């Protein structure tokens, strides 16, 4: 299956970016082959509001089954939920490391957002 990991860099050795909406990159990883593809999130980094919604859309378009991230707010969670994508929050490590944990069944899906929405 394919998952998205929010990442601060462009490869599997990069650290997971704890922010979802304003993550630097989204890395789409095939959990079996560890093949990956990098999606930029520059547009959202500079958005005053609604970054979570737009990021949720970007991720929904990749057709992944789950998102591995640090924090996910209520609107982003709602978008991902609508798109049928599971969310795993509160994790850290390298992109590769978190996918390995995911494969080992050590991570569980979040039932809701883990942080509040914020306003500028």
């Amino acid at each position, binding site marked *: 299956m394919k998952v998205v990991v929010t990442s601060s860099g462009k490869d599997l050795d990069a650290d997971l970016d704890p922010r979802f909406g304003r993550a630097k990159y989204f890395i789409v990883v095939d959990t079996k082959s560890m093949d990956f593809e990098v999606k930029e999130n520059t547009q959202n980094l500079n958005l005053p*509001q*609604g970054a979570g919604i737009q990021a949720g*859309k970007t991720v929904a378009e990749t057709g992944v089954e789950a998102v591995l991230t640090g924090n996910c707010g209520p609107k982003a969670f*709602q978008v991902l939920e609508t798109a049928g994508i599971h969310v795993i929050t509160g994790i850290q490590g390298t992109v590769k490391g978190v996918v390995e944990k995911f494969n080992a069944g050590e991570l569980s899906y979040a039932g809701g957002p883990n942080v509040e*929405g914020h306003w500028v």
Partner: protein
Amino acid sequence: MIITIASGKGGTGKTTVTVNLAASINRDDVTVFDCDVEEPNSHIFIKPENISSEPISVMVPKVDTQRCTLCGACEEICQFSAITLVAKRIMTFPEMCHSCRGCEMVCPEDAVKEDSRVLGSVHQGKNARGIDLTWGELRVGEAMSPPLISQVKDRINPGGIALVDAPPGTSCPAIEALRSSDYALLVAEPTPFGLNDLALTVEALKKLKVPTGIVINRADDAPGIVEEYAKKEGIEILQRFPFSREAASICSRGKLLVNEMPEMKALFQQLFNRLNQLLTESKEAGEVGK
């Protein structure tokens, strides 16, 4: 004649100046508009009676999914992601909506209908002395105050003297309160923090083209950083209210300084006379209302 009392930094004395200025004007056409809708407090001092209230709502979109063809035109025009196409479904985020109705206008299928979201209330009452107060109160949990501030300001009768108590800061709520004022009276606190936020407000007012003056609250004896700044910017300092423990104590009990301290009353009357003079001069010069 609309005089808006603003500051930049919070807690410098906007409300103190607004309510005491209102109470020191010897006319029967003084109205006060508390636009600090996130925490209005002018009513504590003005003590209005026979209060009437009305809820204030804004338009938000509601999509008729039977008619929607998922073309995405609404999503494209929305600058705030308040209406979004996700996984072949239209989602709306009412708290992001700025009520521009763009989605309603561009929908080729007439699928976007009008729904509403309550922002808060507008209250109005008159006190025993005849001062009319209108104030907005944002609903707890609501983050968008400018449309409510705009509703408070819609109730201004430009014929009389309207004193508008602005919210702190220099972002959208403060700008909404200051917009189209005849004069901005900035209440400055003589501290580096106060000066920093004062300067930000002055810059915003230059863009809004609103004539500006400063009053210094809790002033020290010696001229200081605010005077220096005002001189450099060519902004008049209309009054200086000295630091007074007694004044602080009176305010904390919800009382008006002009009723308790004759020396304060004199300062406020002097301030109004100067404001009146400035506004009459600029009216004659045709500057007001431009």
